[in-house]
């Protein structure tokens, strides 16, 4: 392979694909060829870089210059300036929020600085469709080591010693699970990689498959060797087409090289992998429902025990691990259990991938050591809350998790600490909320989700989520009643206790945790008909302050409902009956005027706006007279 002087690591994760990175790719190839640089500059299509908020993005090696928010029309200038003339282009570099000077190098950007990459060690560095790239980064070295020098028991011992726990949510020790699988004498045995990622806003597993599919294949193959399984399934959602395509390609390449299949690397072990696509039912992330789905049955949970490690797929021993758990395995084998267990907290070792989304400046995918604080994630990596708003809470664990308030920002994150504050690790969704987020509305959103996704097998989950949703909807609509809060708590506890699977057992968590930390918001909704965050439409009114309105017609022209009355130089009045409360008038009213206000509770109830528009001049005169009368 010819030596090149520049390599362009163009992100082709799903986020950047949606942002048009393949158009960039074409433009880059054309421009590079136009300047005759094709032998000096090469282009590598990588998986998700992680800094999705800056996509479409590219990192220029070897210097590691980071360019974000690129457009195809920028490319001719960029290629000529940087790749031909050697002048990195400032205007495409990352500028931190509320700062002016760009940060040229990836390693200096705070978003990347505090991360620790074990599972995502290859993200943005390799082309996920080339097995050679993976091999060059110690790829399949762990498999090689295992086959050449370790017994299955030694592998399990190493994983146990490392302290690795399940990354899908519950945090069960991986080594212990494997030991049970190993002890089973019946064959065939199976390994299942769980990539049924359904939490709203979460995309850790998808990105892992898109950026480094071989690390999953290697981890699964080692698991197969340790347990004595001959076959593995990766259960992926059909709506992850790019992940499926890359994984399929990777499996084919690994099979051609003899890294999976019959007699791996000339040894006596055989293990092959197949993809099973799920149609996107949330309950399939629950392991026994997932097994039913693979078998072609209705995805409903099975009674446990017996656990899948004993009675799993088609009744045979089956180890189900989250794909992130499996992708940790090659790292542990290569670096050793002692090295791995030195990272993290007393009970939780290694790193965790989170998708950091919501009201946060730096949206993206991050991998951080266990024990990092929420504050470091939100403010250092995430760059804080946009528009200088106040942080309110962070939601972890998706629909099964809970909201953690600002008072716990310094909590070091691990499985136990999150559970201790009423949330959970979950698979790694992290949704940041600011002062404009209504916590009752949030819990309604999640219960709506789990209510839709409940398989219906247990009545307490099916009907319990119905009842929870009904009460929450009532509260948000301003029809909350005395006793609602107590009812939610009682029913929530019952649903937790009586549901058979994880979906039902955890679905009350968003309600219970917001009741714990934001109880006064529920009370305000019920008693004062007040939504403190001013988010619940039924409880708010938009109002134009006559003392500030210059009658400029901006809100009047932009109101999609035609609810703003008035004419030029007349004070505008909102017809409350016609108003749909979309907030367009508040958005459009210029900051120096800021005549539009959002009211809730008492203010909204007692609102007396002008009965009809009056000329601005007339209003001002009337006000002036009023004040002189008062003064006199």
């Amino acid at each position, binding site marked *: 392979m010819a030596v090149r002087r520049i390599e362009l690591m163009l992100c082709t994760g799903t986020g950047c694909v949606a942002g048009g990175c393949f158009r960039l790719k074409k433009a880059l190839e054309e421009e590079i060829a136009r300047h005759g640089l094709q032998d000096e500059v090469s282009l590598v299509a990588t998986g998700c870089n992680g800094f999705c908020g800056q996509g479409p993005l590219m990192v220029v090696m070897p210097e590691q210059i980071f360019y974000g928010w690129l457009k195809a029309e920028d490319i001719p200038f960029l290629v000529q300036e940087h790749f031909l*003339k050697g002048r990195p282009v400032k205007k495409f570099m990352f500028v931190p929020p509320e700062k002016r000077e760009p940060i040229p190098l990836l390693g200096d950007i705070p978003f990347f600085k505090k991360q620790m990459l074990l599972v995502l060690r290859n993200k943005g560095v390799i082309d996920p469709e080339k097995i*050679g*790239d993976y091999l060059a980064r110690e790829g*399949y070295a762990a498999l090689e080591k295992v086959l050449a020098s370790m017994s299955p028991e030694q592998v399990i011992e190493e994983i146990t010693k490392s302290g690795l726990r399940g990354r899908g949510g519950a945090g069960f020790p991986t080594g212990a699970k494997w030991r049970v699988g190993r002890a089973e004498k019946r064959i065939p045995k199976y390994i299942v990689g769980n990539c049924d990622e359904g939490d709203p806003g979460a995309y850790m597993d998808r990105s892992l498959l898109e950026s480094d599919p071989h690390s999953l294949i290697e981890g699964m193959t080692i698991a197969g060797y340790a347990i004595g399984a001959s076959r593995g399934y990766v259960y992926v959602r059909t709506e992850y087409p790019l992940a499926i395509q890359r994984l399929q390609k990777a499996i084919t390449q690994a099979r051609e090289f003899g890294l999976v299949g019959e007699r791996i690397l*000339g040894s006596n072990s055989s293990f092959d992998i197949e993809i099973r696509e799920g149609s996107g039912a949330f309950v399939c992330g629950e392991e026994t429902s997932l097994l039913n789905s693979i078998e072609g049955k209705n995805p409903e949970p099975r009674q446990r025990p017996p656990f899948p490690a004993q009675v799993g797929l088609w009744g045979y021993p089956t180890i189900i691990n989250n794909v992130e758990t499996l992708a940790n395995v090659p790292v542990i084998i290569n670096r050793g259990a002692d090295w791995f267990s030195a990272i993290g907290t007393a009970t939780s070792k290694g790193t965790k991938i989170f998708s950091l989304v919501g009201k946060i400046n730096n949206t993206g995918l991050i991998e951080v050591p266990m024990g990092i604080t929420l504050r470091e994630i939100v403010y250092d990596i995430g760059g804080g809350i946009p528009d200088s708003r106040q942080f309110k809470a962070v939601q972890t664990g998706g629909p099964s998790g809970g909201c953690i308030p600002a008072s716990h920002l310094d909590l070091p994150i691990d499985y136990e600490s999150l559970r201790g504050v009423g949330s959970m690790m979950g698979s790694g969704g992290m949704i940041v909320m600011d002062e404009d987020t209504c916590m009752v509305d949030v819990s309604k959103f999640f219960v709506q989700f789990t209510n839709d996704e409940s398989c219906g097998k247990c009545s307490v989950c099916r009907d319990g989520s119905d009842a929870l949703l009904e009460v929450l909807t009532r509260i948000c609509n301003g029809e909350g009643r005395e006793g609602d809060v107590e009812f939610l708590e009682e029913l929530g506890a019952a649903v937790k206790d009586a549901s058979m699977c994880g979906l039902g057992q955890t679905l009350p968590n968003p309600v219970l945790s917001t009741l714990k930390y934001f109880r006064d918001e529920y009370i305000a909704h019920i008693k004062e008909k007040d939504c403190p965050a001013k988010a619940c439409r039924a409880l708010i009114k938009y109002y134009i302050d006559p003392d500030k309105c210059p009658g400029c017609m901006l809100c009047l022209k932009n109101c999609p409902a035609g609810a703003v009355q008035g004419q030029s130089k007349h004070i505008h009045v909102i017809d409350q009956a016609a108003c749909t409360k979309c907030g367009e008038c508040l958005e459009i009213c210029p900051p120096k005027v800021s005549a539009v206000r959002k009211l809730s509770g008492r203010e909204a109830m007692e609102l007396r706006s002008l009965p009809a528009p009056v000329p601005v001049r007339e209003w001002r005169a009337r006000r002036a007279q009023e004040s002189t009368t008062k003064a006199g």
Partner: protein
Amino acid sequence: MAKLTLDELRSKRAEAQKGLYLREGEFRGKVIVHMGTCGIAAGARPIVTKFLEMLEKSGRKDIMITTSGCAGLCSKEPMVTVEMLNSAPVKYVELTPEKAVRIFQEHILGGTAVATYALGMGSERGA
């Protein structure tokens, strides 16, 4: 293709590692070819090609060939700056591909600057 044995896997990996050095590199040296309009007009492109060719031949993975803008001494282009770890940068002027070969062999591989082609040692001070 045929299935690999353990040994074949190892040699495949070693082969693949050659292609990735720009992405992981620990660099000991850096050759900066000045590619302002003046540099390009004076023939900087063949210099880049020559350095890349030499680098490939040498098999070294710790040398970075990069470009930058005009060095401010347009009459002496093509110019390069060679920066080796723990020693002062050296600017070479009025280069030809032949001179580039000597610089690569003596300075970059050998560790001794080619005094006859050098403009001087060090760089301008920053503001």
